[in-house]
C-alpha cells in the first residue's frame, strides 16, 4: 500500500507559560495515496493539531511525520512538503489574500516561481475543478462562505498538491456551502486522484469517507471504514460522537423487527433499504 503521509509515534505538547498540555499522545497513522480520509473527534481531541502536523505548520514534540518519505522536522524540506500537502482552514475570511478571485488562486503558483503562461493555465484549471471559473473576476468578499472556501481549495490545487487537508473547513459555513465544499473534495479525490484528509465535526461528512480515524484525548480511539466505526455504539458514546440521524432511524426500525442490512449511514442508503424492505414484505 502506497503511503503519502506517515505518522510514527507522534506526540505533541503545547508548551504555554502556565502548563504543558499534551495534545497528541503516541499517534501512529498512515494516510494512503488517493484516499478520502475523515478525522473526527470532539473539541480538544487533538484533530486540529494533527492537521497542522501534516504539512509542517507544527512539528512533533516526539516521533516523526513523513510526507512522501520527507521528515517534516527537516527545515530544508519544508518548501517541498508544502508543495505536496496544502491546507484549507476553518475561517473563509482569513485565507483569501487578493482582491480578485483569480489573483488569489495565482498567489501560490507565483510564489513557487511558475512561469506566467503556466500560471494562467493552472489558475483556469483549478477554478474549473472547483466550479468557480465563472467567478474568476469577482471580488472574494462578495462571495458566499462555500464559494470562498472553494476559491481557497482552487488556490491549493493550483500548486499541484497531491494532498489537501481540510481543517474543519465546513464548520463556519451554511449547509448549502458545506455540501458544495464536500462535493468538491469528493470530486477532486475521485476524478483527479488527490488525497483528501477531512477534519470535521459533521458525522454526515465523515460517513462519506473511504476511511475514518477517531481521535480521543490525543489518541487514536478507532480507525476503519465508516460502516465499521459507526457500528460501534460504545465507541461513539465514549468519544462523545453521534450517529447521523439517518442511521438512528434505521436502527429504530431494525429494533422494531424489520430486517434491514447493517451499515446504513446516509439518507440515500437508508431510503433504499426501507424501500427494498417494504417491497420484500409486499406491503405495497
Amino acid at each position, binding site marked *: 500500500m502506497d503511503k503519502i503521509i506517515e505518522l510514527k509515534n507522534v506526540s505533541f505538547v503545547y508548551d504555554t507559560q502556565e502548563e504543558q498540555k499534551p495534545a497528541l499522545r503516541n499517534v501512529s497513522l498512515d494516510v494512503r495515496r488517493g484516499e478520502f480520509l475523515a478525522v473526527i473527534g470532539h473539541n480538544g481531541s487533538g484533530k486540529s493539531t494533527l492537521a497542522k502536523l501534516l504539512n509542517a505548520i507544527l512539528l512533533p514534540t516526539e516521533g516523526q511525520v513523513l510526507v512522501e518519505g520527507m521528515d517534516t522536522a527537516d527545515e530544508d524540506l519544508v518548501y517541498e512538503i508544502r508543495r505536496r500537502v496544502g491546507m484549507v482552514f476553518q475561517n473563509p475570511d482569513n485565507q483569501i489574500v487578493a482582491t480578485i478571485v483569480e489573483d488569489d488562486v495565482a498567489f501560490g503558483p507565483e510564489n513557487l516561481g511558475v512561469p506566467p503562461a503556466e500560471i494562467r493555465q493552472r489558475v483556469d484549471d483549478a477554478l474549473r475543478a472547483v466550479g468557480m471559473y465563472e467567478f474568476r473576476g469577482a471580488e472574494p468578499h462578495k462571495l458566499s462562505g462555500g464559494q470562498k472556501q472553494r476559491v481557497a481549495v482552487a488556490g491549493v490545487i493550483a500548486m499541484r498538491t497531491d494532498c489537501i487537508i481540510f481543517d474543519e473547513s465546513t464548520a463556519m459555513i451554511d449547509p448549502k456551502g458545506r455540501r458544495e465544499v464536500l462535493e468538491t473534495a469528493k470530486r477532486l479525490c475521485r476524478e483527479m486522484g488527490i488525497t483528501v484528509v477531512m477534519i470535521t*465535526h459533521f458525522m454526515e461528512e465523515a460517513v462519506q469517507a473511504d476511511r475514518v480515524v477517531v481521535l480521543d484525548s490525543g489518541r487514536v480511539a478507532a480507525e476503519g471504514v465508516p460502516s465499521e466505526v459507526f457500528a460501534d455504539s460504545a465507541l461513539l458514546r465514549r468519544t*462523545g460522537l453521534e450517529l447521523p440521524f439517518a442511521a438512528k432511524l434505521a436502527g429504530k426500525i431494525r429494533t422494531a423487527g424489520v430486517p434491514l442490512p447493517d451499515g446504513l449511514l446516509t439518507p440515500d442508503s437508508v431510503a433504499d433499504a426501507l424501500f427494498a424492505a417494504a417491497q420484500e414484505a409486499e406491503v405495497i
Partner: protein
Amino acid sequence: MAELEVRSLTHRYGAKHMPQVTAVKDVSLRVQAGELLGVIGHTGSGKSTLIQHFNGLLTPTSGEVLLDGENIFRDKQATRAARFRVGLCFQYPEYQLFEETVYKDIAFGPRNMQLPQDEIDRRVRRAAQFVELPDALLEKSPFDLSGGEKRRAAIAGVLAMEPEILVLDEPTAGLDPKGRETILSLVADYRRQTGSTVILVSHSMEDIARLATKALVMNRGEVALYGTVDEVFSQGERLVAMGLDVPAVTRIFLSLRERGLPVRTDVYTLEQGAAEYLRLFGKGARA
C-alpha cells in the same frame, strides 16, 4: 414577560443615491411570551438583519418593532429599554470578548444597566453557573479559555442581563456534537426556569425540529413560512424547493413517497419516522 411584534418591517442597506439592497421586506410577525422560535434561512435570507431589529440595534427603513405593544423606536429611552429586555447574542460571540477577566466581561452588560454592585455580582455568578463555568475561571483572561468555554462565557454575558427575550444567532456554529448539545440544553433550561422567550437562528433542522415550538423560514428577505414546527416541517417539498435543508428523516420519507410508497411526508423526528414506516407493516403496536 414580553410579547414581541414586528409590523411591516423593511430594511434597506446602502447610502442614498447608491444601489440599495433590500435585506428585509415587509415582515410582520408576532412572537408570544415563552415561545422557542427557530429561525431558518439561507445565508443572505435576511434572518440576521431581521433579528438585529429586535433589540433596536438596527433601525428599520420602515415598519415597527413592538415590545408589549410599545414601539421600541418611539424615542431613545424606549430603544435603550429594549436593549436590556432583549438580549442579542451574535454569531461567534467569543470574538467579542474583550475584558481583562471573564468576570468583567460577563459583568459588562449588567454594569451598563447601572445595577447596584451586589446585584451585578449576583448576576455574574448566576450566569457563570448557568453556563457551567467554574468560579476558578472567572478571574482568568477570556483569551486563556478553550473554544467551548469562550463561547459559554460570551453567552453568559448576555444571560447576565436577564433578558425577557433571548435571541441567539447560530450559537452552536463550529462546535462539536457534545458542545452543541451543551449549549442547546442550557438555552432550553434558561427558557424553562425564567419563562423567557428564546429566538434561535440555526442551520440545523434537526435541532429546530426537536426544540422549537414555532418556526420561521426566511427566504429572500421575506417570510416564506411561519407557524408551529409541525406546520412548517410538513412543507418539506417547499423547503427543498427553496434550497433549504430538511431534517434527514423528512428527506428519507420524501424519497420513499417519490418511489411510490404510501407514506406521509410531514414527519421530521426519529419517533415519527419510525412509527410512520412501521405503520406500513401494521406494526404500530410493536414499535
